[in-house]
């Protein structure tokens, strides 16, 4: 049913349809509306779920870890500093192979303190062992949560999934969203029935101390499962399409890539802006396109290679930094081509939209324009040089 919803409200409604047994979260802008909505549903008796109020994100993550370990479906959400405060627990959740599902309202990291959108929080946590799916719009964000539960809880996976949606732009933006109904969700997402759980009649230990004889294999297996997820994600999205009628690849999405000569690679809501610019430039006869990355983890290297191998000029947009090195997404996209027979002539790297600086259509046009020239390395777009100083002496 089509509804006109704020992004956060759409997520709360979809989570309700997933019937989590336990929800635990600590409020942080711009995630707050999601968990506020869920807390209200629990308080009003619309949702038969235990909402656990906690004193911090570290505790919220620990509560959902414990809940899923006992065989209960659980949900949490956070953002920015809250995600960092969870970090220690997040590595444990993936290491213990517990399919916790979490929304991250992607936001910048302090200092300076800034509550607006970029990808520094989620991208910094890319090595946490979680599957990481990035949404372009509210519809996709809502749908990715259904896909996330189905994927994470698959008995061959047992992996936590982070659904990343751009803070404010998607959490507070309002869109017409095709909301699923309970029967459809129940058909697509069966009750959580884990292959292992904490059970007093059949005791087991999760996350014990392992010495050097065992540790590497546990980590190897986690890494292998991420590779296996690359094959499973498109199967689950295909099943999703059968039930809900909306098609996602789940790994990458190409937009106007046939005969494109200049292509931007990006993640998240900026892809909507890029599509609009691509449409405008195509009308003027320019051969431009977009490659959207939905799954940052697992990283669909071969899919990216196949999509971009014949494109002469590629630009990678990063909305996060790996300070002191190459921009994170650009480094990974470039690594895809090393030693390969075919590759773009240039893979340029651009930093845009940190801390909520608007990425306008002009910003995107500037990137397409710069792609006609020499390869750029970590070039900042829309920077204000007048604010920079040599010293404070």
């Amino acid at each position, binding site marked *: 049913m089509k509804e006109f919803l704020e992004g956060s409200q759409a997520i709360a409604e979809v989570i309700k349809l997933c019937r989590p047994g336990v929800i635990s979260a600590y409020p942080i802008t711009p995630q707050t509306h999601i968990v506020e909505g869920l807390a209200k549903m629990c308080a009003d008796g619309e949702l038969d779920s235990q909402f656990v109020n906690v004193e911090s994100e570290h505790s919220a993550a620990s509560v959902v870890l414990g809940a899923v370990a006992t065989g209960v479906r659980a949900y949490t959400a956070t953002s920015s500093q809250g995600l960092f405060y969870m970090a220690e627990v997040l590595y444990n959740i993936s290491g213990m192979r517990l399919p916790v599902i979490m929304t991250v309202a992607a936001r910048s990291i302090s200092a*300076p303190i800034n509550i607006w959108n970029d990808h520094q929080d989620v991208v910094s946590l890319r090595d946490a062992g979680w599957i990481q799916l990035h949404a372009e719009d509210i519809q996709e964000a809502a749908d990715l949560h259904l896909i996330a539960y189905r994927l994470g809880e698959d008995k061959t996976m047992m992996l936590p999934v982070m659904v990343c949606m751009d803070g404010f732009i998607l959490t507070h933006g309002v869109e017409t969203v095709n909301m699923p109904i309970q029967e459809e969700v129940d058909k697509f997402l069966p009750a959580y029935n884990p292959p292992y759980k904490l059970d007093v009649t059949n005791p087991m230990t999760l996350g014990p101390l392992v010495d050097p004889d065992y540790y590497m294999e546990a980590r190897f297996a986690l890494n292998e499962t991420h590779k296996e997820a690359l094959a499973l994600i498109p199967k689950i999205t295909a099943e999703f399409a059968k039930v809900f009628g909306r098609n996602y690849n789940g790994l990458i999405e190409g937009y106007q890539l046939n005969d494109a000569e200049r292509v931007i690679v990006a993640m998240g809501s900026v892809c909507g802006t890029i599509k609009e610019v691509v449409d405008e430039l195509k009308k003027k006869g320019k051969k431009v396109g977009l490659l959207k990355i939905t799954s940052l983890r697992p990283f669909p290297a071969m899919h990216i290679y196949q999509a971009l191998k014949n494109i002469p000029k590629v630009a990678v947009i990063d909305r996060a930094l790996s300070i002191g090195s190459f921009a994170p997404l650009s480094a990974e996209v470039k690594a895809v081509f090393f030693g390969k027979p075919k590759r773009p002539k240039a893979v340029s790297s651009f930093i845009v939209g940190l801390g909520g600086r608007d990425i306008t259509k002009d910003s995107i046009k500037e990137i397409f324009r710069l792609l006609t020239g020499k390869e750029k390395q970590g070039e900042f777009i829309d920077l204000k040089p007048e*604010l*920079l*100083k*040599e*010293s*404070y002496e």
Partner: protein
Amino acid sequence: MFGPLICKPGASRSNKTGPWRTEFRPKFLKKNCIACNMCLIVCPEACISSQPLALSDGKGALSGQGKNTYDFDPDYCKGCGICAAVCPKQDIEMIKEDPALQKG
């Protein structure tokens, strides 16, 4: 190279945040106030004061000096209503904001 840092303090004084206020503002009735100082202590914006300052002699708050002199600073009050909720004498009311006043 350096980017923008805040080197001079006082930004939270110079940025008047009163216009962010909710639809309500406190009204100090100044009838039954016992100068218990609770409203001043709980205010998250620290924008409630009294005349003479309740703590100026180090004991004013407890000795009941400054009864019925407490008021709030509309330049910073965000209308949370905690002062009205905590007042043991119900001497603070939350009243509907006058949109004309909220502009400032």
